[in-house]
């Protein structure tokens, strides 16, 4: 993965930039000692690293605006950062950039139950948003697996999803407003506690813009009353394609589960060895969760089990208690950790139409043989968001490149069957250069003019999302 070479003009004025930033922030909020900037040299896409010029940790919107005004005047690129859990390299620095971390912006500003909203500063972690309201019976619905660590800022930038988004939607469906600072320091409020936007839906545009249009400092989020209960059923199959057909039948039958998760044999065996969840010996399994009162849950689980029974399952295991539910989820929840124990892996997240599942899984099987790398599949089957995990050896020369080439083939396959490159992790640097397989030159241009409006100098997170060749003429120093 190429990154643009640092701008020599910026590198030459490093001392002055740091000095100016120190003049508007507390001393401990400007980090420039190389030993300390190392903490910011990568996100969760750890294969790529680069220490930034410096990192700043403002504590409020005015400080963010002051930082951005200086960087705008000095023409220094800025990379916003939440918790650094991006899997796409969204928060990867360049040597000539200032990392703007929002970790100190972590307060709850307002909780309002009658109107079912919470207003938080953007550095607050996803799970702690729910934490702030759950004693009163509410929760914040989007639940990425990284929710203990990831920040609302990153969730908004990536439009993150979670296991329960089949029912509750992703970040954009639960975001009502933001306070955002533009690259030139202008502070704007978009949306608010009311339910729809007045003019053009700029809020919808900001969500998922990967830190390229502005720095979000506050967010108004929709909170929901907690359901009475939730329980899953585990359904085991001998065949991936049959599992896929079962998913479509469940959806067609009019049940709307909160989650439908899929795991293939490699994932099942690896997690069994790791977490001993007691999964059956099978080639594919589904975990389908529904919500409601006990009786409502039983009714829906019975319906799902009846549908599944028509697909010749190896086993149907309906949870009857919180304990049984936890065991069913245990394996799925440890899947990534379990694979991480046996190998380095790269996690893709292309989405496909659910109907293409059998075809895509069998094509991935063929690619496995062609590349000689193993792939585990664990994903959100209800919405077609795949998570193929390609296993490789980081210490073996050439293996990462092989893995990336195979990943690119899988993602192109997702696009070719009618899907897309990324369902929830974002483009970042990882999928940047594949964008031309999904979009025409005109399609990409239509997106880039949006950045021209919000950030005419292309200083905010400039080397992400768009193929470097496409954005070359716009980028600072390009």
């Amino acid at each position, binding site marked *: 993965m190429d990154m643009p070479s640092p701008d020599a003009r910026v590198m030459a004025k490093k001392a002055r930039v740091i000095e100016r930033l120190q003049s508007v922030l507390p001393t401990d909020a400007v980090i420039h000692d190389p030993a300390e900037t190392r903490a910011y040299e990568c996100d969760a896409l750890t294969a790529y690293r680069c220490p930034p010029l410096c990192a700043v940790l403002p504590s409020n919107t005015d400080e963010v605006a002051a930082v951005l005004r200086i960087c705008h005047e000095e023409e220094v690129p800025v990379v916003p950062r939440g918790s650094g859990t991006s899997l796409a390299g969204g928060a990867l620095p360049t040597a000539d950039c200032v990392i703007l971390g929002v970790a100190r912006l972590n307060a709850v500003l307002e909780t309002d139950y009658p109107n079912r909203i919470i207003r938080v500063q953007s550095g607050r972690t996803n799970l702690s948003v729910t934490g702030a309201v759950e004693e009163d019976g509410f929760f914040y619905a989007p639940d990425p697996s990284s929710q203990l660590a990831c920040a609302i800022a990153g969730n908004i930038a990536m439009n993150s999803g979670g296991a329960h988004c089949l029912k509750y*939607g992703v970040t954009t469906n639960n975001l009502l407003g933001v306070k955002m600072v533009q690259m030139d320091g202008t502070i704007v409020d978009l949306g608010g*506690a009311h*339910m729809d936007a007045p003019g053009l839906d700029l809020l919808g545009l900001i969500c998922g813009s990967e830190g390229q249009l502005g720095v979000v400092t506050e967010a108004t989020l929709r909170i929901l009353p907690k359901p009475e209960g939730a329980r899953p059923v585990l359904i085991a199959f001998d065949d991936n394609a049959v599992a896929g057909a079962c998913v479509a039948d469940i959806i067609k039958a*009019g049940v709307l589960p909160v989650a439908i998760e899929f795991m293939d044999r490699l994932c099942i065996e690896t997690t069994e060895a790791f977490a001993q969840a007691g999964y059956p010996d099978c080639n594919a399994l589904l975990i389908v969760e529904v919500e409601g009162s006990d009786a409502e849950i039983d009714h829906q689980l019975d319906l799902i089990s009846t549908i599944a029974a028509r697909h010749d399952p190896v086993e149907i295991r309906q949870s009857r208690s919180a304990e049984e539910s936890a065991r069913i989820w245990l394996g799925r929840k440890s899947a990534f950790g379990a694979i991480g124990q046996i190998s380095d892996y790269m996690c893709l997240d292309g989405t496909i*139409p659910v*109907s293409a599942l059998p075809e895509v899984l069998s094509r991935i099987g063929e690619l496995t043989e062609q590349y000689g790398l193993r792939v585990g599949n664990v994903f*959100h089957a209800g919405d077609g*968001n795949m998570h193929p995990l390609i296993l490789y050896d980081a210490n073996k020369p050439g293996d990462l490149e092989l893995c990336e080439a195979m990943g690119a083939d899988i993602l192109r396959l997702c696009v070719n069957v009618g899907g*897309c490159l990324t369902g929830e992790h974002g483009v970042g640097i990882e999928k940047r250069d594949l964008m031309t397989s999904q979009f025409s030159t005109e399609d990409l241009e239509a997106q880039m003019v949006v950045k*021209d409006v919000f950030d005419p100098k292309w200083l905010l997170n400039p080397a992400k999302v768009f193929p470097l060749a496409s954005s070359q003429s716009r980028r600072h120093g390009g």
Partner: protein
Amino acid sequence: MQPTTEQDLAEVVRGVDEPIRIVGGGTRPIGEVDGVALSVAGLTGVTLYEPGALTLVAQAGTPVADIEAVLAAENQRLAFEPLDHRGLFGRGGTPTIGGMVATNASGPRRVAVGACRDHLLGVRYVDGAGQVIKNGGRVMKNVTGYDLVKLMAGSFGTLGVMTEVSLKVLPQVEAEATLVLVGLATAQAVEAMSVALGSPYEVTGAAQTSGGTALRLEGFDASVTYRVDALKAMLGKFGEIAVHEGAASTAIWRDVRDVAPLHKTKGDVWRVSVKPSDAPQVISNISPAAHLLDWGGGLIWMAVDGGRDIRPLMQDIPGHATLIRRETATGPTFHPEPAAVAALSDGLRHKFDPRGIFNPGLMA
């Protein structure tokens, strides 16, 4: 002008050198636009429908009714319950799916499942230079590149001419029931709706009309019965509760969706969006001739006489007002935006439509 293919439409746009008024079925005449009419009604047909994937793709001129019929055959529906503006404007015509998206038309179920924009998965449109652009796609989860899909929803044809839309659909329900509380003052009604929407019983509609405060429950038969009882118990302190099932319940929500109580009223019709707890204050500041609360109080429809501009009366209550049906009121159709936001909106319109030919002045 009524092209029948996307290519022809793009050619028309490339060829014109005067302002264009984009029309679907012409059933939602919100705001005034001068210009030659370009109809999208010639682009029709469902291009793809996969019930098992909950997705449907259709040409922008396809009648909404056709799409609802196709979905009904598979026991599915457009869950955001798009409102039909014909009654409000007292006109006929055939609402199209493109017009629905361009106005982000969303009904009572918005409180539970989101608005039209939340169900829009992808668009194809012709931009101001006559180029065909696609964004989003036909899958439910997609964060590839910027979300121009949301931007197109509710853009009232000021950014491009939509030619194809792709939508998330949801299953029909087995049963529905509506609880009606009678005689509540606005503040009490909003409180009752907040209690209901804050309960775990999945209320899919919360509205107040002159007929009472209505709360809808939907789902499997037994589940609806259970939740009707649970919610009744919870709302006991608000007084007598009547329960309407099946067709009677459906009729209540059809009227709320289409703002039926204001069809016969005179005066300007405004649509106000605020946080629910501010609704009583808005109504008392404005004292409309007639009104209807939807979305638990978050959406207020008002008939206001005498051509009054209601925006100053909202004082510092956060939210916005759109003049949907203008009789005598002066002033802009859309709520003026703060300068910094207006600069962004204008900037986008200029990039998408550099010649300023699409519905010029409608939103600005």
